């Protein structure tokens, strides 16, 4: 689940000073998290001339954006710079549709745990391509151990907390606790084969299943 934060002003303002602007604002994921008020403030504080503004939901949907670009074509033509408030996907869509226009994003994007599903969750899945959950009582060491260890803890955790960041729990502690509860501590004696990075890290280009 992608969420955005507004970039610091000093990063944006010098790029756009005294230019004519057109603004794209995404409202798409606002029921999840979108800093709508910050965006409004940011836009209000701009001294530059704003020739138009399009607010739409799901800026990441190419088809929708096309229709908006058509509707606002006059204003967009007048503008020197297009400012986009959205996640990285939205910005890339707008830039690819308006290749000869300068498009700037005002947001930094990060993702939340559980991004690939729908509900934001405390756990994550890194889509590593070879699921280890059968060895670990259903708790993922790849997504949750900062060292991605597969064969037991690093030994650095204290009171069940990670040595990298004491705010997060040691996932191997959780795994051991879970397996103990299941009476399957013997699972820990199985040696997990080294991770096959070729499955996970060099991916095929996206499959187009619906041409």
């Amino acid at each position: 689940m992608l969420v955005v934060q507004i970039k610091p002003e000093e990063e944006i303002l010098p790029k756009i000073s005294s230019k004519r602007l057109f603004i794209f604002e995404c409202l798409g994921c606002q029921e999840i998290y979108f800093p709508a008020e910050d965006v409004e403030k940011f836009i209000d504080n701009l001294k530059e001339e704003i020739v138009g503004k399009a607010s739409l939901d799901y800026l990441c949907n190419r088809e929708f954006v096309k229709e908006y670009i058509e509707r606002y074509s006059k204003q967009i033509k007048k503008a020197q710079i297009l400012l986009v408030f959205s996640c990285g996907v939205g910005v890339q869509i707008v830039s690819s549709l308006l290749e000869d226009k300068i498009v700037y994003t005002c947001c930094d994007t990060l993702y939340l745990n559980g991004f690939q599903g729908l509900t934001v969750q405390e756990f994550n899945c890194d889509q590593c391509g070879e699921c280890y959950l059968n060895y670990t009582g259903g708790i993922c060491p790849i997504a949750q151990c900062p060292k991605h260890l597969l064969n037991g803890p690093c030994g650095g955790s204290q009171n069940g907390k990670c040595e990298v960041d004491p705010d997060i729990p040691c996932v191997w502690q959780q795994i051991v606790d879970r397996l103990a509860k299941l009476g399957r501590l013997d699972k820990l004696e199985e040696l997990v084969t080294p991770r096959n990075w070729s499955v996970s890290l060099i991916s095929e280009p996206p499959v187009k299943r619906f041409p």
Partner: protein
Amino acid sequence: MSLVDYTKFRLKPAEEIRGTFKQINRIFILSCAKCYKIFEEENEEEYTHLLDILGEDHKKIVGHAMIDFLCNNFLSEKRILNLDLSNCASVGVISCGLGVQFVAKLLEGKPVYTLADSVQQSGNSTTEIGYHGISLEEEKCAGCSQCYLNLTGGICPITNCAKGLLNGPCGGATDGKCEVNSSFDCAWVKIHERLKKRGEKFTLESVQIRDYSRPSLKLKSDLSLQNQTLRGEGFYGGLHPLEKKGKTADKKIESFPEPKIAVIFLSQHAGRRAEPSVRLGDKVKVGQKIGEADGFISSPIHSSISGKVISIEERIHPAFQRKDLAIIIENDGGNKFDPLIQPYKDFENLPKETLLEIIRERGIVGLGGAMFPTHVKLSPPKKIDTLIVNGCECEPYLNGDNRIMIQHPKEIFVGIRIIQGILGAERVFVAVEDNKLEAITTLNKFLDKSSSVEIVSLKTKYPQGAEKVLIKRILDREVPSKGLPLDVGVVVSNVGTVFAIYQAVVEGIPLFQRVITVSGENLARPGNYWVKIGTPFKDIIEYCFDKKGGGFLEEYELKMGGPIMGISQTSLDSSVIKGTTGFIVLRKPPVKVSEERDCIKCGRCVEVCPMQLYPLYYSLYGRKGEPGKAIKYNVEDCMECRCCESVCSSKISLLSFIKQEKEYACSSNKA
């Protein structure tokens, strides 16, 4: 349209599955119905493949359940705990890592096995995991929290360059193809070309070094937590729309000018239409009964002005949006009251039956919008222990109930006493959203601390005002599917209705006027008004709209009710009815997206449905023309709050499918 297949998992290799289950028997299989895919049918092939692999050995597999959005822990938990898992020794899960981890956590005492590998559909050619937005496009975002797109012409080097280079190409590309894998375009060649088109040039003035400590685990977990709390606040689902109440929140309720002509519809309540009891040319007074209730579930209609009946004809009804019978009265300006309007001095000692008779005769109906006859609601066949007075007003813009609470707290408490007496309810809750601070303080000031009335302030969220949501929220009681609040011993009544009951019983005034909020865009006089029932919308526009705005119905959308659930008006000849909570004028969206897209199963509708339904199935069956199938997804429980429709990422008009299917369900129930 070309969409990318974003299926997140694939079945593990057959040998691995056989190996895992060599010594394990009695497995229950849970499979996820997948997300982010073109949604055409319910079935997924993975389970049949699994059966092939295990040779359909039924000793091994004792059961199977397919669950939509397995990672949605709130809904899945209910469904999984409802399954009979007593017979199985272990649970096998076909889903991405999220679903497996969730099930493993939920069923901590049972061994849970994953039967699938989660696959990355991430980078375009990259070593970096990329995430997609809500739509199924090729563009990805790695969520690195330090966006470089401003330097690179809107092409992400992190998800597109196999080496993730930020400061120009590696030099290994040939003919614009990546040296790591020649089937990929070189990201930096693309960036160079894009910048050329834009008249820009990539310079090394600001060398970029990626900060891999961003986003920090702390920030991510904080944001996750914040989102989880926000989503889970109060009740499942719902939205946080921009409130926009500020425009009229502080405006005192004023009297709206009397209409010259009043158009009073005879159907202003749920149930049978009232029968006209006046004839053409009759003189009527304010508050005089002009329509007689036709049966128990019906309600009489009163004149809101004094004058002459000039016509009884069909006009466009604002709620049904089709022609319906109305009595047209020409105002004589006399404002003469019907002599029957007399205060009841001794109302405290009136028996319950007399009070109900007064409420019925004075034409009181639910003023929250549903217009259910109040005397019916207050004569429930079951024992009622709790009354909830609904002052949530969760729709944006509206302030009518808010103002009534601020200006008439004493009357509301009297009204509550009357209802409490009729129902014999032991407890009373007045539910107000926490964005109406003034109302909460005022009510608390006038609250008789010794009474059984309690003011509850609720965290703002739409659709909090829906009665089933309120009951769950305040009393933690669940109204059964297809049931009514009275099934759990509760009556929910709107504050406006409570005030109308006060007026009817104490002052003897029938329901011929109500408070409405006029708000929205381009208004010269937004505000809260006492409006006579039957005031044509034309008059309201005339009085409140800023005329410089020009052409009306072409540019503006007119909604009776709130902006979300309100009904779009097609005719200014319609008029205010008892269920008109507000009159909202909104500029039509500049772009009307021309066609609906296919459902991509993004699951947003499931995520926001406060009734915990699966709206995507209604559109699936609706489009296929198989409405009967939607019944198993409890379509009748939908309260049409439009949350699903407003978040639909494919702009599917879900509500039209829902209405269609509800009708079907209704007619098949009768049959």
